């Protein structure tokens, strides 16, 4: 397994405040990795440390095996970065800005011009001739994406990339990010959990500088599965309700219109017992669905557990 990002006991203090506490991240090459957490969790600090814009108090970090502290320019060679509130030179046009920042890469002039035109088209700014100072927030964000991609990076670090975009812009951005899967490693921080759920393979949940979880979304779902089952039937039956309430594998039962929402103790047993019960009572079972927790539910539960475990 090749790692695009690895941090070892990465710690950052601002005065007496501990912003990041011994963070050990491992991000696989080609994956789309989401860094989740409430405000002040340490997401931006982590990204700024990885770019070399800030120095850690202690710990190490590697991008594709290159030590960010010992060989910063080597580590940044294949890096694309977008800050949360990207700021550009207002007197430049989008094209001029991309040509300017692209000049720091090893691309030839011809390659850079072609890359610039391609990216302007990708972010639909190819027809815009006015200076950046006249851009809307959404246009700036799109230019931010283009400048992060200008050097054909192997790793993209995006700090809240969709926060300033409207729903359509967000959808397009997430599609663009999704299309990079496999070729480019994307490391993004976000507080919009639906976005992370949509594009990320793996997530890390941070709170107050501490890593609470780091795993694939599917394994998080398994671990935090709440054993909720939704049943849909065409006819209400008192006998069914009574037997479900008495069943030792049922923890809770709620009625929601024509649907029944069960919380069960053992999902495996429920999957066997429910069809049997309907069959015995001669009732039609239109739908049985084991409900997976959303990332938001998992996120809240992880934070909740952290709170409860505090001494």
């Amino acid at each position, binding site marked *: 397994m090749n790692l695009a990002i690895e941090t070892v006991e990465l710690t950052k203090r601002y005065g007496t405040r501990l912003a990041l506490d011994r963070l050990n991240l491992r991000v696989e090459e080609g994956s789309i990795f989401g860094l989740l957490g409430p405000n002040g969790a340490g997401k931006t600090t982590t990204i*700024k440390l990885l770019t070399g814009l800030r120095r850690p108090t202690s710990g190490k970090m590697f991008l594709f095996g290159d030590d960010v502290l010992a060989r910063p320019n080597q580590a940044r060679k294949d890096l694309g970065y977008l800050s949360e509130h990207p*700021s550009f030179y207002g007197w430049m046009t989008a094209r001029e800005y991309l040509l300017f920042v692209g000049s*720091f890469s090893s691309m030839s002039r011809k390659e850079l011009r072609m890359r610039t035109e391609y990216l302007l088209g990708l972010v639909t700014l190819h027809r815009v001739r006015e200076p950046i100072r006249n851009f809307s927030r959404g246009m700036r964000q799109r230019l931010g994406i283009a400048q992060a991609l200008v050097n054909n990076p192997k790793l993209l*670090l995006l700090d809240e990339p969709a926060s300033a975009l409207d729903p359509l812009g967000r959808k397009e951005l997430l599609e663009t990010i999704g299309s990079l899967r496999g070729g480019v490693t994307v490391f993004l921080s976000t507080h919009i959990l639906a976005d992370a759920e949509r594009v990320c393979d793996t997530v890390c949940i941070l709170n107050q500088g501490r890593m609470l979880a780091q795993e694939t979304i599917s394994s998080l779902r398994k671990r935090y599965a709440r054993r909720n089952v939704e049943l849909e039937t065409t006819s209400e039956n008192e006998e069914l309700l009574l037997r479900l309430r008495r069943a030792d594998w049922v923890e809770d039962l709620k009625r929601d219109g024509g649907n029944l929402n069960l919380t069960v103790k053992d999902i495996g047993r429920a999957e066997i017992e429910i069809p049997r019960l309907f069959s015995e009572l001669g009732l039609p079972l239109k739908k049985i669905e084991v409900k997976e927790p959303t990332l938001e539910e998992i996120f809240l539960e992880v934070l909740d557990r952290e709170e409860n475990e505090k001494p």
Partner: protein
Amino acid sequence: MKSLRVFLKKEMKEAIRSWRLPVMLIVFLFLGISSPLLFKFLPALVPPELKATFEQLMKPTYEEIVSSLAKNLSQIGILVIILFNMGSVSEERGKGQLELLFARPTSRSSLIWAKFLSSSLSVLLSLAVAFVSFGLYYGALFPQAPPVQGLVLGFLLFSLFALFVVSFTIFSSTLFSSGLWAGLLSGSFFLTLSFLPSLGGGFSRYSPPGLLEAANLIMRGQVVNSWDGVLVTATGTLIFILLANVVIERAEL
């Protein structure tokens, strides 16, 4: 070297597009021509009864006129240089523009050198405009031609002091996220420094503002040895630009 080239190109373009360089050239052109114009035409505007007193105060000799140029450059000129450079790093840092650049394989110090070189070029060009326009206007308005050698030496000494101002202002600009604070620090520093020559002795000989006094005397036709001031000012320029590099290298963005 590549970073320096890219940053320098950007700085020069910005100086022109933001009107910084054209405005500076116009201000220094005005400073250059204002003294000969003032000495030539002001007496004609003074009422006859005040003429005698006025001629005693403002004698239209070359020494007086060139001193007026030196005074304007060392006051308004320096202020303009501070105003145009106080936000050079702080504004970009404060707005977050440097973040997207320094996350790339660039050298932070090349940004500082690019700013110093581009500002120095603008300042030298502006001073050249001031001195050349002074010489041309003086030659056209007064009977005798100005002494070229004195003006060239004066230009060189003023230029060195101006580079010292640029260097210190860029350094103070790396310390703050607001150009205003950087400007206040630079202004206070040069105001304090300007009192040093009046203390006499070593202060007059070695302090950078002593160079301006030397330039004034040289332009007036006197022979002055200013090598000590030149060395101190050149060293100070280098020290402050290196300090600016240290600050920006350590800065957390």
